[in-house]
């Protein structure tokens, strides 16, 4: 409708990118990130590899933004075909669709596991996952701009919950938990850097901006916004790691399944109305996981949509949903789930990094518009 174009309410705008980055990245990963970092480091040493890894991710998201913003109002497939060839572009789109599907099912399984742990013991995991998937399907069936609007609605609530958590756990911090300093060996730093890149990049989901930024009409500022969004994420990670390690100490953090939720368990909300902040925190976190799921699913749909132009969006959604639900059931236990997460993460990171660098090189060499 003419009205929408005039008001620019049905397109994705630059400001949406700033909100989209944290919404995309923040999900399950951050809930157990302090454990995987504390695992390989000593004391508070996790912050250095986190800063380093965060820096690399910020650099990469800037590159992603740079290349995607060169092709405003074009789909990923269109500009990828210009830079490479059509078959290669289709292959890359397929890989991104696959990543989107894997991420969706990973997050779905994750939320089912955590609900099972913290909210109800008796309800079967499948039911929890299925209901969540149905809600995600409902969101993806709607308009794309609406998903970005959802980000804007939910992100403030999530941020308030995190700040609340950090603020109230401040009283439980013990400074001797931060020592010893610089005792980690290089191997440990190396592992921690890997893991922090995995977490900060949200298992490679930040690469979805390759799809989204090019949809923005005038994406001049988009790379900058994406960088700001990423810095925001890194700062959030830093704060959470620091507080978690200071409260629990390195050794305890290492052995907690979801240290951030445990953190929420320790704090007491003044007023004596809510006994368990953890349940409430997790409920709010559901929205963060939902945002990631919806966007990952949407990227899979977007990628497939551009390949199969004649197929209706809803059909793609309805074909993908059972596949995602089937994949959700594959990992046998939480250890396997964690491993799967890492594999998906490396797959995503490798995909995004190679595609971005390849595109940048081709762009410089060929100079296509």
């Amino acid at each position, binding site marked *: 409708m003419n*009205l929408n174009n*005039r*008001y620019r*309410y049905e397109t994705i705008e630059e400001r949406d990118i700033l909100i989209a980055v944290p919404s995309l990245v923040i999900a399950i990963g951050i809930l157990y990130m302090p454990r995987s970092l504390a695992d390989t480091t000593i004391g508070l040493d996790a912050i250095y590899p986190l800063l380093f890894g965060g820096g690399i991710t910020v650099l990469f998201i800037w590159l992603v933004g740079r290349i995607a913003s060169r092709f405003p109002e074009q789909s990923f497939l269109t500009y990828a075909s210009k830079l490479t060839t059509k078959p290669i572009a289709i292959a890359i789109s397929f890989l991104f669709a696959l990543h989107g599907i894997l991420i969706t099912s990973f997050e779905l399984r994750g939320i089912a596991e955590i609900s099972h742990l913290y909210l*109800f013991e008796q309800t079967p995991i499948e039911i929890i996952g299925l209901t969540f998937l149905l*809600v995600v399907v409902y969101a993806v069936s709607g308009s794309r701009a*609406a998903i970005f609007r959802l980000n804007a609605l939910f992100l403030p609530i999530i941020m308030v919950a995190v700040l609340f958590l950090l603020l109230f756990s401040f009283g439980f911090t013990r400074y001797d938990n931060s020592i010893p300093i610089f005792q980690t060996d290089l191997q440990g730093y190396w592992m921690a850097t890997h893991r922090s890149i995995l977490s900060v990049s949200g298992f490679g989901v930040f690469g979805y901006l390759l799809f989204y930024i090019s949809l923005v009409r005038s994406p001049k500022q988009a790379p900058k916004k994406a960088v700001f969004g990423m810095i925001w994420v890194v700062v959030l990670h830093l704060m959470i790691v620091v507080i978690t390690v200071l409260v629990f100490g390195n050794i305890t953090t290492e052995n907690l399944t979801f240290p951030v939720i445990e953190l929420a368990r320790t704090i007491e909300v003044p007023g004596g109305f809510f006994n368990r902040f953890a349940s409430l925190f997790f409920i709010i976190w559901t929205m963060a996981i939902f945002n990631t799921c919806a966007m990952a699913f949407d990227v899979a749909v977007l990628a497939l949509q551009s390949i199969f132009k004649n197929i209706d969006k809803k059909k793609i959604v309805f074909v993908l949903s059972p596949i995602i639900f089937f994949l959700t059931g594959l990992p046998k236990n939480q250890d396997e789930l964690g491993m799967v997460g890492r594999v998906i993460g490396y797959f995503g990171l490798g995909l995004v990094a190679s595609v971005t660098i390849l595109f940048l090189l081709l762009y410089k060499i060929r100079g296509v518009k």
Partner: protein
Amino acid sequence: MNKRSKFKSENSKASSPQQDDSFTIEIGTNLDKNLTSLKTMLGEPTDLIIREITIGPNQEKIAMIYMSGMTDNQLVHNNILKTVLSSQPQADADLLDYFYQEIIAIADITKTNSLDDVSYAILSGDTAIYVDGTNTVLLMGTAGGEDRAVEEPQSERLIRGPRAGFIENIGTNLSLIRQDIKDPNLRFKTHEIGRRSKQKLVVSYIEGIIHPDLVDEINRRLASIDTDYAVSSGEVEQWIQDSFLSPFPQLVDTERPDRAVEALLKGKVVILVDGTPFVLITPVTLTETFHSLEDDNQRWIVGTSLRFLRYLSAFIAIFLPSLYIAIVSYHPEMLPAKLVFSIAAAREGVPFPAFVEALMMAITFEILHEAGVRLPKIIGATIGIVGGLVIGESAVSAGIVSPIMVIITALTAIASFTAPHYSMAISLRLLRFTFMIAAAFLGLYGIILVYIMVNIHIVNLKSVGIPYSVPFAPVIGKDWKDMIIRAPLMMLMKRPAYLNTKDDTAAKKRRQSK
């Protein structure tokens, strides 16, 4: 589908030939024949008054026709009948022109040749004068009849605000708006809706403030209405709303002229329908449905606090019963031990699970409310007593529900009525049931899933093309100061940015010359 619509259009053509614009019945020159054809067309109604008069030196016959009860009697008697009877036309004068120019003391007077125009005018309360020997008819705007006085609106009360409300007569309603806005750019665009009722519908806006696309879109939608009779503005609302599947009102109704005027000045469209005191305002956003004019009439600290109170009430109205269900049946550990014990003690002896308990009370309340609305005012008080007894004392002492449930039901009910728009209050009460069912199945997790679903619905919903979730999503920071809080007036110099108004300055600080 195609076949059906084709059939329909042929059918309507056959039954009412006057629908077709190219086909009009001309009026003849013979008075008796003319009168007979008019009477046949209208089916010789008993309230059709035909006064035949013979006048002038040539003894020419004229006839004056109107519907009794639909005209302003004073006007018909004093300004038409009396003047016509006392007139003394010259022998060679053209009688029709003579009346038109000199005799009839009514400003709104037109000539026509078409029988359709005449019958439509008479049915709308105008008076027609036929003169024998000519095929032209004089139509005089004498529409009047019984009207209600302008009173304080029943459905939206303000403590501080004008005591005027719209009435059923659209002419009066337009003048109520006109009285407040003397801007020459105020536009009233008239549509006619209702194939048979031929009601007047007026789209009102201020040119130069409103975004033109908005007016075009609304006019386009209004043109698509094809119905016999629009019972009220509520029906028009349902014809032109964006999504018929939504529980949320995408156009709000108001009985208050001041509210309509405020909307016009913000750059919105106001739709008035003849025969109903409720006018429609569009576009509207979710936050705006919680605004009352009271906020603007009070100082900003009070206004802002009232707004927050209303948001909190909406939250309570939607979530409180479902939170009770979820916490009692799934997560009792979330509450402090003392509170859990007192709830458990109160629930002791209640034979039902929390969900059934809450559902019973909620439905009882809805029944009481519905009965209270339908009953005559005199009996209404009885409902209060019966309701108080049923909901309160007896249910508890019979051991069917717990006292805490009574508190929750009462609080929820009262909270839902703080929404200034009744249509929004109903939506909140409806949503509450969805949340209760979700809480019964999946506890807090169910509540958050339904909450996400409601949000998905809201971000996909539009009011005449404008996202319902503005100014939160898409984020329009400028609008927060009058959409979420009510900032001091000096800070509210601009019209809402989301409406993309052409003239965005609503107020200015005047420079003092020293």
